[in-house]
């Protein structure tokens, strides 16, 4: 199976308000898929549906082959999730966090320990495994959070603005981790409104007023909109938005 996310006319309405308006797209295995949009364009609502947290009003969606409306438990088991706001428990140690999330996702007890050692040494955190997470620098925290999100080898990992505020070198280390994960076959679905992050993606979709208005590789999008940067592409598209921002 090569397609890991597929949606057909996926729609979510809140009363009269159509937050997500018939979006259709598919994401291939091992792809880094960027999900862009202005504040209030419907990104969060769409991602909640894909994670099985919110039932679509109409349309269909499949994640890892499971129906997001009916097989939410199976969907949740095959994905990982990380956001800038919440990902790790600050008052637990590095080791305790890994054990906790490994346990939640049902990783087998005997594989936890060797895999934890491996993860910690890749991150250079072996000496810090008994430190509280809150004592770590922000960049390390985010790298650790990502490693925890893919610890159970999910088919897809959802990243919600993962690297806000991180210094440029650490940010690049973070993206190296993401590339390594995709080489192992993990698909990465990332929402962001920072364009430098968008440039790292294989393909990008840009949401405007609840619809997907553009979907292609960064280079093609730049060519299509005759723009120098993704920032420009984004602004040209967002200008068309009619939905009042509030």
């Amino acid at each position, binding site marked *: 199976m090569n397609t890991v996310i597929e949606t057909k006319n996926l729609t979510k309405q809140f009363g009269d308000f159509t937050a997500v308006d018939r979006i259709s797209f598919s994401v291939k295995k091992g792809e880094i898929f960027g999900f862009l949009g202005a504040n209030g364009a419907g990104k969060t609502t769409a991602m909640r549906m894909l994670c099985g947290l919110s039932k679509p009003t109409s349309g269909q969606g499949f994640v890892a082959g499971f129906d997001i409306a009916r097989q939410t438990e199976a969907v949740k088991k095959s994905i990982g999730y990380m956001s800038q706001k919440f990902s790790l428990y600050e008052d637990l140690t590095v080791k305790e966090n890994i054990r906790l999330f490994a346990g939640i996702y049902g990783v087998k007890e005997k594989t936890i320990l060797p895999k934890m050692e491996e993860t910690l040494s890749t991150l250079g955190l072996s000496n810090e495994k008994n430190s509280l997470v809150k004592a770590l620098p922000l960049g390390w925290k985010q790298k650790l959070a990502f490693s925890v999100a893919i610890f159970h080898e999910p088919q897809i990992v959802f990243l919600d603005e993962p690297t806000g505020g991180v*210094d440029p070198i650490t940010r690049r280390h973070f993206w190296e981790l993401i*590339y390594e994960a995709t080489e192992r076959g993990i698909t990465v679905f990332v929402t962001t409104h920072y364009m430098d992050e968008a440039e790292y993606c294989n393909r990008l979709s840009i949401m405007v007023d609840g619809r997907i208005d553009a979907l292609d590789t960064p280079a093609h999008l730049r060519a299509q909109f005759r723009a120098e940067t993704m920032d420009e592409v984004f602004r040209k598209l*967002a*200008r068309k938005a009619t939905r009042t921002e509030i």
Partner: protein
Amino acid sequence: MNTGKTAIVVSKLNKRFGNIQALNDVSFEIERGELFGLIGPDGAGKTTLFRILTSLLLADSGSAVVDGLDVVNDYRELRKHIGYMPGRFSLYPDLTVEENLHFFATLFNTTIQENYRLVEPIYRQIEPFKNRRAGKLSGGMKQKLALSCALIHKPSVLFLDEPTTGVDPVSRKEFWEMLRLLKSEGITIVVSTPYMDEATRCDRIALVQHGKILSIETPEQIVRQFPKKLYRTEMRNQLQLLKELRENPAVESVFMFGEYLHVTFTDDTLAPYHSNPDRPSPVFTEIPPSIEDCFIHLMSKS
């Protein structure tokens, strides 16, 4: 009030929180009417610096003078002349847009009418929603309201701590245009951001990391001071090429920039090359460095 040319003088500021040296011997001067950027990641010490300059924190050592007023001794007078927009949303979500603005106006002993001309270009955009509660505004709108509130008393110095974090690119661009407008009114603006691409919009920028200032220059000058030739090459094969270049002794630094790699070589007199006989050598194109390239360079040097 100070009528001199200098708006802010900071000398040898130090501040420590437990084990963390938040500010390490920071000194700089900001001209009156300048749009000054503090660029650096979270935890670089930007917020601490803002809090000291707005008299909200006491430094361990060193001194700071804002608008001719010492931030420690003259804090009462100082607080009348500065506008401050902290990093997180700092308005009252249960008050309406208009009530928030009105409240901040009276807080500074003024009225909306008195300085309406100054905030008008910004406030006009949110005025249609003036009876809406501030908590129900979108990110971009909240930010405009917060800026209006920080401006309503016509401060001579405006401090904006990461005003564009979490705001979409369209609103961010609009925001910077508003700052330009305020600058033309003669207001000194100190603004921080973790995003390098915003640096070019400032008159001068300070690159900050671990409580230290790495460099203070105009954006053009910072770019000009990049000591190497910078090349870019397409990163076709995901991580493979990056790893190869990193191992290569001729390569001084290599960093990902979207679908490209930015590379500098130890010896700029030689043409860029690649020594993997199994594959055709990648194409290196010389490019002008960005602020982000400079920041990375300065960071890895320090």
